[in-house]
């Protein structure tokens, strides 16, 4: 189980995430919603270790991991896909995924064997590419992929990490409508397995409604609502947060 307790980060005087206490149970998909600037991605960065918390704790299965580095957390099973595509641009699609597979295998420090001889890693990477239907792009350099395919590759890298906790940050942002189902089907498939914790930041309310077991609303860095999709989506506080946020902007 993943928990955050009074998790806070301040940039100067501004608290981007302010005292968020929340727990995420295995087998559930929790959507985190809120207007732009509500602190959703920052909250993710605090959980996965890209930013250091000013106060509060992050716990994973009861262990305090607040002081752990990002790579340490990743190896403990916290998997993260990024909102802005964040790949290894000059490497091929297959190599991008293979690198993620390799983390788990612990072969990263092997200097004396040829990477090409580790067939099992390459095969596994190809399976993950197939899952996001990028098989025929395996040898394409990542930077030259169309945007939608880069988003899919981002998801494939997350799959390849085989984490216990999947954190998706707007996985379908900027995708064309016909590509969206590929990614949503993957998320649904992970959910179906029943033992994984899924955190999803998403703006598309229809996606949120159909996938979520639970919705958490962030507004100005604070957790303002937490409940099942039916009650949250129609609640005043969400409407106010979204419309208020839009009005501020």
């Amino acid at each position, binding site marked *: 189980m993943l928990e955050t307790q009074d998790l806070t980060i301040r940039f100067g005087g501004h608290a981007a995430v302010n005292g968020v206490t929340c727990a995420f149970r295995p087998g559930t998909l929790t959507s985190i919603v809120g207007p732009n600037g509500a602190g959703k991605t920052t909250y993710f960065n605090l959980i996965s270790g890209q930013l250091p918390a000013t106060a509060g704790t992050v716990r994973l299965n009861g262990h305090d991991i607040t002081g752990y580095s990002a790579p340490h957390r990743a190896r403990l099973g916290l998997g993260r896909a990024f909102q802005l595509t964040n790949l290894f641009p000059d490497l091929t699609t297959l190599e991008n995924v293979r690198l993620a597979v*390799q983390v788990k295998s612990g072969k990263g*420090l092997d200097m004396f064997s*040829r990477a090409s001889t580790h067939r099992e890693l390459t095969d596994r990477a190809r399976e993950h590419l197939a899952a996001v239907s990028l098989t025929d792009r395996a040898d394409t350099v990542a930077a030259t992929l169309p945007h939608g395919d880069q988003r899919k590759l981002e998801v494939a890298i997350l799959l390849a990490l085989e984490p216990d906790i999947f954190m998706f940050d707007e996985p379908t942002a900027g995708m064309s409508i016909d590509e969206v189902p590929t990614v949503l089907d993957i998320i649904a498939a992970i959910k179906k397995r029943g033992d994984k914790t899924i955190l999803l930041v998403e703006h598309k309310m229809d996606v949120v409604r159909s996938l979520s077991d639970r919705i958490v609303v962030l507004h100005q860095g604070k957790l303002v609502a937490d409940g099942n999709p039916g009650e949250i989506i129609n609640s005043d506080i969400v409407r106010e947060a979204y419309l208020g946020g839009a009005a501020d902007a």
Partner: protein
Amino acid sequence: MLRSLLSDDLPRSRWLSLALLAIVIGLAVAPFAFPGAKSLNVAAKICVFIVLAASFDLLLGYTGIVSFAHTMFFGIGAYGIAIALTRMGVKGPGGGWEAIAIGVAAALVVAVALAALIGLFSLRVRTIFFAMITLAVASAFAILASQLSDLTGGEDGLNYRLPAVLRPSFSLSDGTLFGASLNGRLLDYYLVYAVSLVLVLGLLRIVNSPFGSVLMAIRENPFRAEAIGYRTVVYRTLASCIAAAVAALAGALLALWSSQASPDTTLSFDIMVDILLMVVIGGMGTIYGAALGAVLLVFAQNYLQDLLAVLNKAMAGVPVLANLFHPDRWLLWLGVAFILCVYFFPTGIVGRLRQKR
């Protein structure tokens, strides 16, 4: 067999394959094909600089680390041999090898320890700051080397005797073969050649290993490499240590060849600029590029002047041109050649050749 030797990193270009074959074979037959002290010296230097440039490519081209301390490790290797041979001397016809062993071992320990120290302390900072730190450390080291004259011989450096079998006076047989006398110099050359070949193949293996793929990932996107679970500081520091060790071995080879070590020939910033140029011109992140770059640069440094002298003679009497091709202008022409090279081959010679295919 060949695939395994090259670690599956084939040249992937016909011209590159031909060039590499020419280098490997050319250097192998150099003592017989081009007899003479100068050409043998150039061939040995090429071997040493291929290793040095290739080890720098591991840092610059594969890991994205900009370091100006690479010649420091080169110098550590050279001084390791020089100091050991000077202090311990060469006793008897079979002597000197224990001094060489100790010198190499000590140099490797110092080089790796220093690289690890610099890496762990400063590889977390941004590229440009790291480059500055290495520049400072390397400068301090060069000054230290020239100041500690009791140990290093100061600005003059050290001259020492090599083991008997590596000296010109050691004769394998009385005759000559294709105009080359079969002496200790020849043995020395093939020692340099063989060790260089093994080191370059070793580097090729490292960059094509699972470890090497992580280095490239770090070069491409260190933030993401961390996010998927690689501790980038560890990998960068290891890469620095390996590069430092290989550079030290290259320095040791130079010391074993030239039987002298001085700040000018092993520690100077000019050498740092040279290996930077070798890697950039040859093509970063390819290892093969470092080899091509080293060959071209060492050749230019040694023969461009001669070529200009020929041109100068041919144009004697033509007013401006003769002056322009005066042998003293060789550095100018070297500079022009490099600018053209970088302009027309931004991805280096290897990058260009592989595009063509």
